[in-house]
């Protein structure tokens, strides 16, 4: 067991866990933040996607000991009021079916738009290929990402 000072959604938190604990389980079990989901444990499905600084990473395969001072953003902290353009677009395009993978999808999409505010279909294919939706909502995910991009473009 060791102590770690983490920055999660703009807040400093201290946890005492074994160094090999994946960030996912620190978030879910230690901090009680269950918005980030477990799907495969080997960085294949993307359900556990969070941001490390501005990059989408798979928290199931990221030991807490390697997080350091990097800023962690989870789905709960993506926006203060749940009004990130991607979150709004997800509702407008009525994306979720079961909804389980969608936190991870949204985190991947938000990271993509930060990097590429006007992504092409090809960009979406590449950025979202790591996120499985078992219900098959890919068409609406694509629609929502384009809609969020249009909205962001309109604002700036």
């Amino acid at each position, binding site marked *: 067991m060791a102590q770690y000072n983490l920055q999660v959604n703009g807040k400093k938190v201290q946890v005492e*866990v074994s160094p090999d604990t994946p960030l996912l389980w620190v978030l879910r079990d230690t901090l009680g933040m269950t918005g980030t989901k477990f799907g495969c444990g080997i960085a294949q499905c993307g359900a556990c996607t969070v941001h490390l600084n501005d990059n989408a990473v798979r928290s199931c395969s990221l030991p807490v000991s390697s997080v350091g001072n990097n800023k962690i953003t989870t789905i709960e902290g993506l926006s203060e009021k749940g009004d990130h353009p991607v*979150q709004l677009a997800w509702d407008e395009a009525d994306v979720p079916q079961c*909804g389980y993978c969608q936190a991870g999808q949204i985190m991947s999409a938000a990271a993509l738009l930060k990097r590429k505010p006007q992504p092409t279909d090809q960009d979406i294919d590449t950025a979202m290929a790591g996120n499985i939706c*078992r219900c098959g909502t890919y068409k609406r995910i694509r629609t929502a990402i384009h809609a969020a991009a249009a909205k962001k473009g309109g604002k700036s």
Partner: protein
Amino acid sequence: MSASIVSRRSFLKVSTLAGGGLMLAFNGLDKVLAGTVAEDVLFAPNAYIKIASNGIVTLMATNPEIGQGVKTSLPMLVAEELDVDWQKVVIEQAPLDTVKFSRQSAGGSGSVRSSWEPFRKAGAAARKMLVDAAAQTWNVSPDECVTENGWVIHKPSGKKLEYGALASKASGMTVPTEVTLKDPKDYKLIGKRIPNVDNKKIATGKQPFGIDTKREGMLYVMVARPAAFGKKLKSFDDTAARALPGVKNVVSFDNKIAVLATSTWEAKKGRDALKIEWEDEVALESTAEHQENLKKLTQQKHEIPKRTDGDAEQALAGAKKVLESVFEAPFLPHAPLEPMNFFADVRDDKVELYGSTQVPARVRAEVAKALNIGEDKISVGVSRIGGGFGRRLQADYAIEAAKISQLAKSPVQVMWTREDDMQGGYYRPAGMYRYRAAIDQNNELSAWYLVASSVNQDNASRQDNFPAGAIPNFRVDSHRLNSAISTGPWRAPNHNFLAFSEESFLDEIATELKKDTVAFRLELLDRAKSNPAGKLTYDVDRYKAVIKLAAEMGKWGTPAGKGIFKGFASHFSFGSYAAQVAEISITGGKLKVHKIYCAIDCGRVINLSGAETQVEGGIIDGLGHALYGELLFEKGATVQKNFNTYKLIRMPDAPAIEVRFIDSNENPQGLGEPGLPPVAAAVNNAIFNATGQRIRRLPLSLATLLSDQVDRNR
């Protein structure tokens, strides 16, 4: 409110009203179900509706939500007839209550079908009581009153009262024995696009699923289960596991060892530290021997056919030509993205169960049996569910959680890793389907004989599927191959493969007869109507309508762009008709599916957005498994363990999809499954049109085709 305080009189009255589908807790404050919003519930006319004095209307989501959209679509039915402002409606997930609700399950694409009438009647009955309450308040005739968006309006005077203000009085009104349902032309919700009611919570990470369940003092559990089907526990040593930080207990039962710890990760490390010896209980099975045994069975006639019209054997014997094809289906895991997990807190006097299940009533019954505890002591709460696909029709994982809680005397959340889930059983069974078709002297299809074989299933066919009814000599046999590998329903059971084999084989026959594959189906359907052989379980006109619409959407008969090839398939399942055109290309030996056009007749559409996404999702699901799905076994263990080797369809492979619904006034039919079955055959038939070669096993592999023919450009 418990059933015991329901007055027998009102109970019977309303039960009659709803034809037994609506069991009521009537009259007054419902302390048990009252949520935060509805604490001042004044009017709870039936188990589906609570109206508070502030006008907030709480509608109960009675059925488990696995992504099929019933948490939105079923309350829509109540809200439509209640005539309430959807924006002011709060949806609450109901716990299991077999007294108040009927059919609280998610399976067989049946939720909307079975709820269509009782749910609307529940809304209409409540609306009538609110109108009566207003009429009495104003001392006018109820006939002079109308409702709109949660208000009762007295037409002549223009006076109006909101439902909330009428709630108290309405609870004293007589329950109507008969209600008039709306004319469909007046629908404000049904048929419209209504977003999933949990979207905002899902998009902000606030929507809990079963796996998110936390309770005071709860321990996380990982279970070591037999590493292969056919193995049992010989011995284990938990010394090292118990010494690890966070590990609180280790219990063993039913050839399993459960490690309880203060976090998931510690439980997993504890399980990894167990030293276990397994031993073989029965011979361990492998895919190769399944295939061999299934094949043998398809060569045998079954004494008792599943269906027989005319004499298929005789017609085949006298045929001008016989076509024969054998189609193979692999095992498939359900692989819902939320792995199996369940919460259980077993005490001496009561049991709390909570989590992701498609069948809370089955969970309660089976846990009661396993623990030898009365069902009345067991509560089952239903969370939102991270996918079901049939896996959560089983109660195994809930029973396991309950047993662990009982043994360890602790509330537990049992967590399965993806690997546990993949090895966890209840798969779509592997099967083999041998078809023979007779072409007679007049160049007509005169006989069809299917001999099916499948693992752990007495009937792997749907013997009444089209083209049954269209062919004078028709026979279906089905053989069972017993296996230690557990199997169960998987989205669109049997249909999910039968549509592939039937519709591919029909395409083969059309090709042999030099007929257009769409025209051939229409011709067979005309035959089924004018001169049916045996009983017909489908409606010919509705079947033809979707076939024609899909052909029109996909511009069947006209060339697509250069290098693009089309394929067609249709299928009837769960009361709904679906037809699809696939557009594909093959470049460098690689298949790309560009677009799927789908025409579907599911009767009346309840939620257009939800309906459309069910069909799109079904197509993606069917396509993904047609392209990649295959679970192999080696010595009783799955070869594929996780998503690195068990491939699921991803964004880059998802084609464009266009869905159109037949505009229909028929009662709504199933929709969670019917979009899935046709797609594999539509794609396969397109592959034939591109290569001139047939694939007869899933997943579709171009490697089985001659390499010089897989690169054909027009």
